[in-house]
């Protein structure tokens, strides 16, 4: 097994020759694994020295400045300097912490519910009679009464078929309960495999509870551990996060065993259920089900969490990092069409953030947006000549005709970018608040309001509203939906809407004043609504007061939509319309998409079908789609395969391959044939034939490695099967 030391000693070469394998590399090719090299201490130490210098430097700002300068000088090589990485770390940890906080908050209610349930049940068990030590460590279970065999079980409904979001939820739940004194063990479907049986999961439990080196599966160890050294003051909790994936028989068996011992060791089982609440009935045996005494808890849905995360990361003061309209649309469609998990959304966000830092040199200024008590204009102190030039070449800057001559305005622009509370965010949140009555998702609102080219005011002309009524089908703009829904709201709903707007705009007086102006009207509406007898009075008498209420309501909704119009007109300035927004806004949607989700199935096929586009060679791209002998062999063969149906006759395929590789006009062919006839005894084409056959074999093998064809079967020895049909 010894890892190679000879290879490790080889100096790493960086010339193009290093792509070509040398003798040592060839030896490595046939080893299952090897150590290419060990960490060199030299370069590491310089990095730490650099970091140290920065920390010790009396004026950190100055040090940073010099680093940016040096980064500017050596652009390319040190483009990704330590500083850039550090700022990324700062920004991302801020975003990540925010997300974790949001998730913690969304789960906290359920967690404390579970905690209360555990302790209440535990107290009731304990009050029913504690066992003496000698009684408890007897090697057979204590049988007192049938009800004592019940296992308290919490079914936690995750409302999400994908487990990946809830893995961390259950981990958090475990640590939450641990911090409250419970003994917690976490098992997952891998522990409940039919292969290992119930012994496997018992061992897993003992390893987590008793000690990590236990190698026997004996439940009496658990019982004696529980009675020793005061462990019995606290309940034992077993968390199974993905119940549906567990082997039902193994889980049933574990439940039966634990329930037999329930008097000695009061175990609480927490089962994560991702399908429906009757899932345990489907996977557990009847006898195991009888032993469960279940309580149900429900987590928030992925869409709800998603909205909360969006709000906290993009619409409340967080890191300053944001995304463009197109990127937001891409993230939305990935969430809705492809994945549907918050985990993948967070990963997308991280990739976007990472790529922002790797593409945009000025992104390091984001560090200043992360710091809360920021002195105005200090961000510009970082700007050096090189970065200045870059800053004034940004498209958003040239588009707005801002030139170097207006350089002194830069601090003002940066301040605008940093302005908190951001009026745009407030407007979006206000619309979200109004949209909640129509069950609008913040994700949709966020994506739509980021659009720099949207014209919202057109919805406020009367014909537009009328049109919107008829246009029920199809996708409607969120603003239009909000306006339409406004007219259906009851006085109570309107009043709660106003209250939430008041709260949202509290820090922004311009909008807040407008909202406050609505209050007197609201009071008249409420007064009209509260006239005694209206709800119960007969229609005849009520008609007059009803019509008055309707009139007031109509006036009120008109006022509210006027405020919405005001907000949209004055403050709906998406980030992409602001100069210098490139510093904090990630825009490159193509890069994000390709990094997030490779599509090997179509990309590998298009590599082969359009090889000249990638190789950029002069020889193959000249004549459209005709097959040329100069093309890559595998490419030729795969293009030929396109002409075949599901199966390809090897003989035909080979012959057409051969024809492409050795193109001759018909005349030459006939002369060759006649020649052949003359001296048949000789073998004129043997070497070429061998080479063509070898190239054919190689190309077929490469297609097989790519998984594009299946090799001939015993039943069909002369055919290969195509395994992919579209790019």
């Amino acid at each position, binding site marked *: *097994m010894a890892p190679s030391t000879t290879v490790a000693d*080889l100096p790493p*070469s*960086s010339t*193009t020759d*290093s*792509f070509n394998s040398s003798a040592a590399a060839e030896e490595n*090719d046939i080893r*299952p*694994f090897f*150590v*290419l090299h*060990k960490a*060199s201490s030299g*370069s590491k130490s310089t990095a730490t020295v650099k970091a140290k210098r920065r920390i010790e430097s009396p004026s950190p700002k100055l040090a940073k400045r010099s680093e940016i300068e040096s980064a500017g000088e050596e652009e*390319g090589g040190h483009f*990704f300097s330590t500083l*850039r990485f550090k700022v*990324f*770390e700062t920004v991302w940890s801020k975003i990540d912490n925010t997300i974790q906080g949001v998730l913690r908050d969304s789960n906290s209610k359920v967690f404390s519910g579970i905690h209360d349930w555990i302790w209440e049940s535990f107290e009731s068990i304990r009050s029913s009679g504690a066992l003496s030590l000698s009684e408890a460590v007897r090697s057979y279970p204590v049988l007192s009464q049938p009800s004592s065999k019940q296992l308290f079980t919490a079914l936690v409904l995750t409302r999400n078929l994908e487990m*990946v979001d809830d*893995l961390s939820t259950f981990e958090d739940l475990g640590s939450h309960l641990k911090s409250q004194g419970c003994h917690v063990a976490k098992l997952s479907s891998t522990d409940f495999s039919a292969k290992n049986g119930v012994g496997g999961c018992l061992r897993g439990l003992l390893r987590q509870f008793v000690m990590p080196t236990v190698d026997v599966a004996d439940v009496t160890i658990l019982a004696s551990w529980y009675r020793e050294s005061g462990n019995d003051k606290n309940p034992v909790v077993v968390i199974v996060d993905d119940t549906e994936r567990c082997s039902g028989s193994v889980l049933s068996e574990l439940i039966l065993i634990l329930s037999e011992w329930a008097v000695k060791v009061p175990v609480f089982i927490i089962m994560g259920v991702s399908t429906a609440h009757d899932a345990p009935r489907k996977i557990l045996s009847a006898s195991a089900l009888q032993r469960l005494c279940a309580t149900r808890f429900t987590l928030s849905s992925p869409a709800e969490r998603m909205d909360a995360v969006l709000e906290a990361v993009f619409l409340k003061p967080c890191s300053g990092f944001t995304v463009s309209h197109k990127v937001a649309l*891409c993230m939305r*469609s990935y969430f809705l*069409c492809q*994945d549907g*998990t918050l*985990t*993948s959304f967070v*990963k997308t966000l991280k*990739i976007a953030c*990472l790529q922002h830092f790797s593409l945009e040199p000025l992104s390091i200024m984001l560090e200043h947006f992360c710091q809360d008590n920021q002195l105005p204009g200090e961000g510009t102190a970082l700007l050096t000549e090189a970065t200045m030039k870059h800053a004034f070449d940004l498209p958003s800057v040239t588009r707005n005709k801002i030139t170097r001559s207006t350089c002194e305005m830069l601090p003002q622009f940066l301040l605008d970018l940093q302005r908190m509370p951001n009026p745009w965010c407030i407007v979006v949140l206000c619309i979200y608040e109004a949209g909640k009555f129509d069950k609008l998702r913040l994700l949709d609102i966020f994506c739509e309001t980021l659009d720099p080219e949207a014209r919202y005011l057109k919805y406020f002309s009367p014909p537009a509203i009328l049109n919107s009524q008829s246009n029920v089908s199809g996708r409607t703009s969120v603003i239009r939906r909000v306006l339409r829904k406004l007219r259906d709201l009851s006085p109570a709903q309107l009043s709660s809407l106003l209250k939430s707007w008041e709260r949202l705009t509290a820090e922004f007086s311009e909008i807040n004043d407008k909202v406050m102006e609505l209050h007197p009207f609201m009071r008249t509406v409420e007064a009209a609504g509260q006239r005694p007898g209206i709800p119960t009075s007969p229609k005849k008498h009520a008609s007059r007061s009803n019509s008055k209420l309707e009139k007031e309501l109509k006036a009120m909704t008109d006022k509210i939509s006027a405020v919405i119009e005001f907000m949209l007109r004055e403050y709906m300035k998406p980030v992409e319309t602001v100069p210098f927004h490139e510093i904090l806004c990630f825009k490159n949607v193509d890069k994000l998409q*390709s990094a997030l*989700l490779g599509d*090997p199935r179509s990309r*590998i096929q298009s*590599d082969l079908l359009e090889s000249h586009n*990638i190789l950029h*060679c002069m020889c193959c791209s000249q004549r459209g789609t005709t097959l040329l002998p100069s093309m*890559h062999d*595998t490419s030729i063969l795969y293009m030929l395969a396109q002409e075949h*149906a*599901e*199966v390809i*006759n090897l*003989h035909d395929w080979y*012959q057409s391959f051969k024809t492409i590789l050795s193109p001759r006009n018909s005349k030459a062919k006939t002369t060759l044939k006649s020649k052949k006839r003359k001296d048949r005894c000789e073998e004129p084409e*043997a070497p070429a034939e*061998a080479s063509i*056959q*070898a*190239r054919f*074999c*190689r190309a*077929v*093998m490469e297609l097989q490695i790519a998984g*594009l064809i299946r*090799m*001939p079967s015993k039943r069909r020895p002369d*055919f290969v099967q195509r395994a992919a049909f579209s790019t």
Partner: protein
Amino acid sequence: MEDIDNIEEDDFGFSRNYFLAKELGGSSKRSARKLSDINIVDEQELRETAFSIETKHEKEISELLNEYKTMYPKWIFELRCGFGLLMYGFGSKKGLIEDFASSSLTEYSVVVINGYLPSVNLKQVLLAIAELLSEMLKSRRKSSGSSSKGQETFPSRSIDDILSFLHGSQSEDKDCFICLVVHNIDGPALRDPESQQTLAHLASFSHIRIIASIDHVNAPLLWDKKMVHKQFNWLWHHVPTFAPYKVEGVFFPLVLAQGSTAQTAKTAAIVLQSLTPNAQNVFKILADYQLAHPDEDGMPTEDLYSASRERFFVSSQVTLNSHLTEFKDHELVKTKRNSDGQECLNIPLSPDALRQLLLDLSQ
């Protein structure tokens, strides 16, 4: 929303092509030409020629690789940010990744797994990584001045134990990690769920980063969402190199060499030569019978038993059965039932190949 339309459009295109291909297969008559119609050169020669095929577009390929070189700093940045790199695209990416590792990842220890080899043993890889890691931690401890722990011994431990050791020794320093290069993470030895789980588990540790390549179009099916988003944390890179799959293809059969008479007879001879003389003789009886009765379905098992027993090649039915199992395992013999319902043994070789085989055996 346009994306949804695009996706639907793509799906439609895909299914249309699929059904077109199916339809084509049904309606037009399949070509009945045989592979044996081609005058196939000797396998040895084929292999030798295949080994020395000159690569087309060598200049363009090296330009392509140089273009990827400019992305190395970005790749390091991504690794440092905690992502795993997944390289895909047509062509061998072995040279590219190893060049990246040896030129740019000098600050980190690099372990390479050749996933295209069928003999990869993940436990040994884990051992090597654990040793590297404990070495690294030791040197760090030394530099920080605190006393080091006693020497850990890994070889006796199970995979789970090593994984939990690796899990336990995660350090605070985010920029201190070992890079694990996996060529063909979709390779034959790593394709099973256990190996992928182990690799994913390994990738989830904060001090391990994975750089892997895939070649198979269906490789992403190996992973579930937990593995993709939480453990491997892939960042995809489309890096077609068009470099020949030299080492990766060593274990693949050549399509033209497969199934030819000479080939099967030769492999059969190799198998038979490794068996006991008695087993060889039993096989000879069967072969002689088949050559003498070319029109029959094969030799009835009872007849073979009595014939073999007569010549003292087997002493009991049990011994014969063990020989037959050996033959069947190597596909030297097939069983069939003849018209009388008797079980018959048949060697799936042409008479010519069989004669050649007998000749080889007697030499």
